[in-house]
């Protein structure tokens, strides 16, 4: 009979008792998701690895503060997102925009959003989306990444970012409008096809 994989809380407890193997198991369980998450903020493989490493080292240092009130992966994601955003800030790579501009209700572009062409290769589609995301203010990029790529529920995004569900909804609304606007600006050829 196959042995059931230990749950996250048990691995955390064992890691806190000094089990090197348990912590390694936790890292193995989430490394792919954390690398995928960071990849939406930087394309440099060395930076991705550095940020992933910094995230997991922070997790290890703070294990004793994990209360188990939220899922381990929500707690881990919170540390990862904060690590990424701190790094963006330090490197001056977060698109800067005035707060009032961010909070303004966008004018929905009158042109419909184009659907990606079926002939677009998977990598090409991801590259175009990434290029557009890169130009969005960080708060919009983060909600889109968490919702669309990480498939997180509104409540999890709210917990992770420390905001209300209503704020998650309004940010997503604005983020999608901005995404569509920038996509059509950068790639008018897709708009004319629709």
């Amino acid at each position, binding site marked *: 009979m196959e042995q059931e994989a230990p749950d996250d809380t048990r691995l955390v407890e064992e890691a806190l008792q000094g089990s090197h193997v348990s*912590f390694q198991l936790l890292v193995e369980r989430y*490394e792919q998701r954390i*690398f*995928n998450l960071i990849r939406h903020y930087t394309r440099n493989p060395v930076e991705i690895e550095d940020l992933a490493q910094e995230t997991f080292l922070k997790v290890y240092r703070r294990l004793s503060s994990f209360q188990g009130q939220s899922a381990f992966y929500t707690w881990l994601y919170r540390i990862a997102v904060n690590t990424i955003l701190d790094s963006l800030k330090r490197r001056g790579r977060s698109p800067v925009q005035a707060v009032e501009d961010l909070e303004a209700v966008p004018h929905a572009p009158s042109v419909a*959003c184009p659907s990606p062409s079926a002939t677009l290769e998977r990598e090409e*589609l991801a590259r175009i989306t990434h290029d557009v995301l890169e130009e969005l203010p960080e708060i919009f990029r983060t909600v889109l990444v968490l919702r669309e790529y990480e498939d997180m529920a509104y409540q999890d995004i709210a917990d992770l970012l420390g905001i209300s569900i209503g704020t998650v909804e309004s940010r997503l609304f604005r983020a*999608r409008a901005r995404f569509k606007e920038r996509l059509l600006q950068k790639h008018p050829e897709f708009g004319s096809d629709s």
Partner: protein
Amino acid sequence: MECQNARSMIPSYLDGELSEAQAGPLRQHLLGCHPCRGSAQDLKNVKRWFADAPAAIVPAGFAARVARRAQQGDTGELVETLSTPRSDEDRGRLLSFVLACTAAAAVLLLVLAIGLRQFGLPQTDRLQAEPPAPQLGKALEELDRLNRADLNRADRAPHVLPKKP
């Protein structure tokens, strides 16, 4: 359901955030409302751009390396410091520091140059030479005395013209 209400619910509906009790009436509305169906289609198109991103590559042995470093008490701070390129803000601060140092060095050089010049200039308004030192004065008096003695001897001697060969 009114269109305004329906449109505000479309994102939550497509994100799977509505209960069946909320989603049912919206679906009914969409079936009969062409403009609202267009809004839903528009949002679906936005979401399609995020589909199916290729997975990032995790380097082999990453978990083992991180676990080992964590147990060794590595905080990851050194990695960050070494690998982080300087931001524009950091570069600006560095430039300001270098400029301040250059300005301070220039002021110091100016002060030194003025000071050295001051040392080289006369300390009073009298531009005559200093009186000769006592030993030098004595020597000059002796020289005068010898000159006068030579002159006296020359005056007393007979003036004889040299003979022609």
